[in-house]
């Protein structure tokens, strides 16, 4: 059981802290011009963050006790291909669809 005091303390601090992280550069730097070398690096933030987020989730899913799951690996590859050659919605449908399809073929659902 989570006590009320603990919950509210954590939630309020997490809310404030998360806002400050989001506000940080956008809030404090404002309209200041950034040097070209900084701009060059900023362009790569998206492609650097997302693989670091999803790679461990795909390789060691919590739902299978952290063990690699062939159905999820195949589904992730399908989502990436559909995203590269199609659209966002295609990637989402291909990813979840392929997962259900492989789970169905292997009798998991």
């Amino acid at each position: 059981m989570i006590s009320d005091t603990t919950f509210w303390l954590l939630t309020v601090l997490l809310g404030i802290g998360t806002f400050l992280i989001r506000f940080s550069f956008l809030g404090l730097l404002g309209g200041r011009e950034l040097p070209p070398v900084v701009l060059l690096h900023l362009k790569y933030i998206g492609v650097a963050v997302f693989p670091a987020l999803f790679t461990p989730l795909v390789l060691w899913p919590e739902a299978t006790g952290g063990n690699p799951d062939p159905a999820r690996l195949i589904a992730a590859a399908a989502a990436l291909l559909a995203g590269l050659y199609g659209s966002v919605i295609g990637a989402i449908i291909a990813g979840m669809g392929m997962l259900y399809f492989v789970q169905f073929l292997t009798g998991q659902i």
Partner: protein
Amino acid sequence: MTKSQAFWRGFRDCAPFIIIVAPYSMLFGVVARDAGLDVLQTMSMAVLVIAGASQFTALALLQENAPVIIALLTALAVNLRMAMYSAALVPHLGHAPLGLRALMAYLMVDQAFAVAVRTYEDNPAMPTHVKVAYYFGCMMLICPFWYGFTLIGALVGQALPSGLSLDFAVPVCFIALLAPLLRSLPHIVAALVSALAAVAFTWVPWSLGLIIAATIGMLVGAQMELFLRRRADRVAP
């Protein structure tokens, strides 16, 4: 492009992500109620934090009776990537008034960042107020859906069958966000390096491996672009 056109274009460009946001936020509602939170507590967390991964992290650590400070720092570490988003948005949205920047900061989620930055880079001539309108268009659907489906999950409770593997919606969402950003060789190399680094640094505590991997990926991408540019200059002076 006028402000209202930009707003509705953002709305349309981000709309596909509600297929992910709806089940994911609903899942949070269910898990939070299972952990013993009431509906008000569940909603307060969703509204105050509005960052799924850190909400799940905080909840899991509270359930394990971790000290508040540990739960807080771990959940904040998960959100540290958004400082990078914040920086990446400065060249596009930095000129907006402070109040708007604060509101945009509150609404800064992975989807809004990825979709908006991609559009801004494709349309460098977009004026700031149009970029701001586009940004709010992106969040116009995501944010109400986030609140609404958290509430539905919290009220409906355990109606979600685990056979749906909804956990996998999260990586699929990040893959869908990444794919359109892979537009040049340095971008692809940065993504590959970041994925490998994330695997190599999974042992780092407090999810800080994510930040290390993202930083390495960013540096490699930028250096590779510089290298290709210099080589092109040498070939065709």
